[in-house]
């Protein structure tokens, strides 16, 4: 393999390519003068002066008192003290476009007044009491949530995170089928608790502890995958895993409609329907992890799985569901939900009044402000602009995603798709300096994840694209 790569590298150093590179460099030099420093879109708000501890003081405390595994972005981590809509403000009052949404979590915008009001009102009235007593907040939210789901997906279990939701979904599937095996995709992220760490499939997130009963199918990645966009061929790997790696029956298949942490990878067309059929034939359940792709973020649909024409048996959600409040949910059919009555199942904070009031408010805001539609319009526009940047810069290997769930992959060699790790970090830092906070992901950490609050505007999109344009032009 090394010899093969070396040979290709040698071949690539032939004169025509050198000429092309020289030309590109000259073009870049010429372009430099024409790419203006972009200005943040207008926003009618001035944050009050910040009187709290400095970034350095906070960082020192984090290092001393918090887990060493807590990581941060940027050489000089940004001290965020206030948020408003799609913007964040640091301790100096500087404004940033939040193109990451607190990791695809803030969907309505920071401190959306309707959501904040719902939280404050409920908190003043009753913060917590437990589901052992009745309360309308949990029931109203469950009803509103299920009205968004197709088929017979009408029963809700509330949790406090996506990890908890996926843990519960996997447990339910195992109980319902009597089987233990779960199949997930390589490059997936489904959580980091004992059970979900098994389903998560990226080495950086998997600790060296026992992870039993999970199988990882070849990722149907149109860009890097071995079968390109041929969904059927990837689906055969799932059948192969079932034939050889299991008893012939499985508990469930779980996947994200678009892989979030994995670098905004859309699944090859035709893949999910084919896998759905395979799984159903073996008596397994189909779990759609909508923790990131749900709540209208993909623009064309409310749920990511809807773009693939399948109706899952179980849907899990979190992140955007509460605009940042600790909330997750599992929705399934009455028949499947029944399994949890075999023993006691309880979640102390699951469905608590404050979080469910917030969740209900989020659903109302998404509808009232037509945020799914906005994700579609602005997302399509942004994707177009990013694709134009790809035409302009060799460093951009791929632009993908849907709605406001977009990925830009940087590679140093388009043919070899060599991850541009160093360049990615550099661009990230430079974009921060220009006022854009963006996400990073993918196995190699070379993919920009753009998952802003769904109230993102075309002006914001222009700003992000312009900032990336300027940064890339300076490299």
């Amino acid at each position, binding site marked *: *393999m090394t010899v093969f790569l070396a040979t290709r590298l040698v071949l690539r150093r032939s004169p025509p390519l050198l000429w092309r590179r020289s030309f590109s460099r000259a073009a870049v030099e010429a372009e430099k003068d024409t790419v203006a420093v972009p200005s943040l879109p207008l926003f009618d708000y001035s944050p009050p002066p910040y009187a709290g501890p400095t970034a350095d003081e906070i960082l020192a405390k984090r290092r001393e008192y918090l887990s060493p595994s807590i990581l941060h972005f940027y050489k000089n981590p940004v001290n965020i003290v206030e948020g408003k809509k799609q913007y964040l403000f640091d301790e100096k009052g500087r404004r940033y476009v939040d193109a990451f949404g607190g990791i695809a979590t803030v969907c309505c915008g920071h401190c959306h007044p309707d959501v904040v009001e719902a939280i404050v009102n409920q908190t003043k009235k009753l913060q917590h009491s437990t589901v052992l007593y009745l309360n309308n907040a949990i029931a109203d939210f469950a009803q509103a949530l299920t009205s968004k789901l197709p088929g017979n997906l009408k029963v809700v279990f509330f949790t406090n995170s996506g990890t908890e939701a996926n843990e519960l979904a996997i447990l339910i599937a195992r109980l319902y089928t*009597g*089987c*233990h*095996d779960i199949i997930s995709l*390589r*490059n997936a992220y489904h959580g980091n608790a004992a059970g979900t760490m098994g389903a998560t*499939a*990226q*080495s*950086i997130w*998997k*600790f*060296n*502890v*026992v*992870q*039993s*009963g999970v*199988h*990882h199918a*070849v*990722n149907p990645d149109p860009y890097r995958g*071995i079968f390109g966009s041929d969904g059927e*061929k990837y689906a*055969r*790997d799932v059948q*192969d*895993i*079932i*034939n*050889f*790696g*299991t*008893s*012939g*029956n499985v508990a469930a298949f779980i996947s994200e409609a678009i892989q979030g942490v994995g670098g905004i990878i859309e699944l090859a067309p035709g893949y999910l329907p084919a896998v759905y059929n395979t799984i159903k034939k073996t008596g397994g359940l189909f779990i759609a992890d909508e923790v990131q792709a749900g709540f209208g973020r993909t623009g064309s649909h409310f749920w990511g799985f809807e773009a693939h024409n399948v109706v899952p048996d179980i849907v899990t959600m979190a992140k955007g569901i509460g605009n940042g409040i600790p909330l997750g949910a599992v929705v399934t059919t009455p028949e499947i939900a029944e399994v949890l009555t075999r023993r006691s199942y309880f979640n102390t904070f699951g469905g608590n009044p404050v979080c469910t009031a917030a969740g209900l408010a989020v659903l109302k805001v998404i509808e009232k402000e037509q945020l799914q539609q906005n994700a579609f319009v602005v997302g399509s526009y942004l994707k177009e602009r990013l694709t134009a940047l790809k035409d302009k810069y060799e460093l951009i290997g791929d632009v993908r995603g849907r709605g406001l769930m977009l990925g830009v992959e940087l590679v140093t060699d388009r043919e070899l798709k060599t991850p541009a790790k160093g360049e990615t970090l550099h661009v990230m830092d430079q974009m921060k300096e220009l006022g854009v906070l963006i996400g990073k992901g993918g*196995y190699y950490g070379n993919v920009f994840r753009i998952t802003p609050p769904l109230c993102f505007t075309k002006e914001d999109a222009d700003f992000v694209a312009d900032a990336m344009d300027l940064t890339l032009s300076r490299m």
Partner: protein
Amino acid sequence: MAAMQRPLKRTIAIAKQRACFSSLLPSAAAAAAADTVAPPQLPPFDHQPHPYNGPSADEVFAKRKTFLGPSVFHYYKKPLNIVEGKMQYLYDDSGRRYLDAFAGIVTVSCGHCHPEILNAITEQSKLLQHATTIYLHHTIGDFAEALAAKMPGNLKVVYFVNSGSEANELAMMMARLYTGNLGMISLRNAYHGGSSSTLGLTALNSWKYPIPEGHVHHVMNPDPYHGAFGTDAASYANDVQDHIDYGTSGKVAGFIAESIQGVGGAVELAPGYLKLVYDIIHKAGGVCIADEVQTGFGRTGSHYWGFETQGVIPDIVTMAKGIGNGLPLGAVVTTPEIASVMAQKIQFNTFGGNPVCSAGGLAVLRVLDKEKRQAHCADVGSYLLERLRFLMERHDIIGNVRGRGLMVGLELVTDRTNKTPAKAETAVVFEKLRELGVLVGKGGLHGNVFRIKPPMCFSKDDADFLVDALDYSLSKL
């Protein structure tokens, strides 16, 4: 490639024409044609079986159904009551002789009731049958020494167990202790045992009960015939790297593979595969385990161990089956460094390395050397493969002939292009072969592969008989 394909296509066309022509024959003519081909006869063998006066097949079968677990399965519509064995032959209760082309599932390596092995067993049994490794005895050391002498590199420390499953269990534990990692990787289509842990490594749904299988994953099978990448070892090896990158912490305990998959249907691995994968595994902090339970002891002909055909030296080698010509015996051989991890706690195996099995195992090694069984496997095995490949040209239903030495697989398919498993046809031919006096194995996920792995004293005459019987049986389909 195109040039090679052309002759094959022409052959298929000719075969199809012949088939069409045959189907047009009047039934009388067909019957006449059948009458002209006499069923093949067993090669002569100078042995008269003892008269049998034990219980009948029906009585034995009734007891099995009443008192034994329902999972104990049998071959043939009318199960055989085998009462005597001699070299490569078996005898049933009516004194009928059969050519044993399966060797008790690749176990009888030197031949049934080989006199030198019988002598070693009976002499040791008379002297001391069992005492335990808490006390000394020379047989276990002598056998370990002889076994280590057959291993390459620094594979010099032996642990004795009583089966291949036990051997693979122990190897897996060593791998985890030595590396500090937990994840094991095996190949789809592999068989490594039926115990609760090795069942995880095994990757054929017909053998896997629905219980938690531990921290194990199954990567793509580098199957030249059915595999997604044909004989491209690098692409299959990439799947291992991909699995490590995404499905593990980046670290693994070990990788285990049979050099030729036994239960999986005598599938050889794409050339060069193990070398690539062993490198990948070592970089991920893991150890490489070669499961030689079926491929060991010279059966592949060209080498003593199957892994040698791929030009690698494993970190751990497991063996059983042929090691004792049928005695309950298995072994794990590894380096002193890896072996030392077992000293962290107490490790003990009551019957492991017992005097009778050690003496028997040592006798097997001597017989294999003295009778030059490895070279014999190369010689007769090559001849057999050649004849089977010729048979493939005559019968469209034979989709693939593969294997090495006397570890051979013959896959039946109803459609060569789609490689559709010919399950029903396999079952019919299987029964027909038995009627003709040939006992053969069956394998592969779809049960459409004949496994031909006879005692290594199998002769060219036996090979001829086997192929003639196959030819005859396939002609009757």
